[in-house]
């Protein structure tokens, strides 16, 4: 009988957790509803289908919930080490996250710029897409519009760990810092939305 080898400290946390079947089911439902929603947008569906088509929007909401749960869990684990690792820990987190999303994002941004002639034809318009600020243009341009949800995620990836680090800088424990960041994220965006929009 083989003995279980203890995992090296560097492999603990972050992305080394076991896969959860339930989350995969949620992911499948989210993917299908987003595909289904976009399919309805570009077709003439049966009136019954058209009437339930609005539910497709919940696919993205589900993705956000999944992300919040998974990334939140990772952040809670890795931030335990941030009082020692400090900015190196955050940069490691960013590196892992961004390596998963940014290469593909920038590749398809480049492809879009080549084939979609109706948008982002000037450097100033492209600048927004380089720093994920396209959501701040209102009305949001139709060019590469699918990226709106990725933009939300990227800013979350950027700001949330910074808030945790800020709180750690003020001497709070990592757990309390995560809680502080959650409270700030729950309160500030709705307040800003109320006053700015």
């Amino acid at each position, binding site marked *: 009988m083989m003995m279980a080898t203890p995992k090296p400290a560097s492999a603990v946390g972050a992305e080394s957790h076991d896969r959860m079947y339930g989350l995969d089911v949620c992911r499948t439902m989210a993917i299908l509803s987003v595909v289904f929603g976009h399919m309805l947008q570009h077709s003439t569906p049966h009136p019954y289908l058209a009437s339930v088509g609005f539910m497709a929007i919940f696919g993205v909401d589900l993705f956000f919930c999944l992300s919040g749960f998974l990334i939140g869990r990772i952040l809670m684990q890795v931030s335990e080490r941030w009082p020692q690792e*400090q900015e190196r820990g955050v940069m490691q987190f960013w590196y892992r996250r961004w390596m998963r999303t940014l290469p593909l994002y920038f590749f398809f941004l480049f492809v879009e710029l080549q084939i979609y002639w109706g948008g982002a034809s000037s450097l100033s318009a492209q600048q927004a897409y380089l720093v994920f600020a396209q959501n701040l243009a209102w009305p949001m341009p139709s060019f590469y519009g699918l990226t709106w949800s990725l933009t939300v995620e990227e800013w979350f990836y950027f700001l949330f760990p910074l808030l945790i680090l800020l709180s750690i800088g003020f*001497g709070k424990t990592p757990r309390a810092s995560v809680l502080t960041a959650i409270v700030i994220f729950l309160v500030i965006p709705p307040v800003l939305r109320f006053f700015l929009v």
Partner: protein
Amino acid sequence: MKIDFRLLTIVACAFVVAGAAIVMTRQATNSAVVMEIIPPKGVAMTDRVPDGMQLEVTAKGLTLTLPECNLDKYQDKFFLHLYTRSGLEKNPPAFINLDFFLAQETGLAQQIHGEKSCVYLKPLSDFSPQQVNIGQFTVPNGNCCEITWSRTYIFDRNLLGK
């Protein structure tokens, strides 16, 4: 509670960099500044862009979207004037005339949320325009011209105010 000033400084710098990126992007948001044409003397301006028609103009191309593919409201001739950098330096400014009738153009039919619309595309990138004027006009009783609506798109911000 021990405050780590070094860490706070690093975080503050990160926030400042992010804020600066947003502010700079906000200042340079639109690819083109849209202005109304001030019609020359003797040319009447009667209306704005007809309801329902969507217009998207960039230096690369013009996209016109007609809901329901209904051409009835858009029988009048379109004027499409492109001003290149060298054309704008002339006095009076010279433009490339690409006037057209929509009925003679080929539109691509599409359906979004079950609603039909037609998209007309005109590539402009070959001309590298710095400014695009577009609108529709009529020639009442043979007297040119009555502009029914118009828009000016300026791609070079340095041209603003000229």
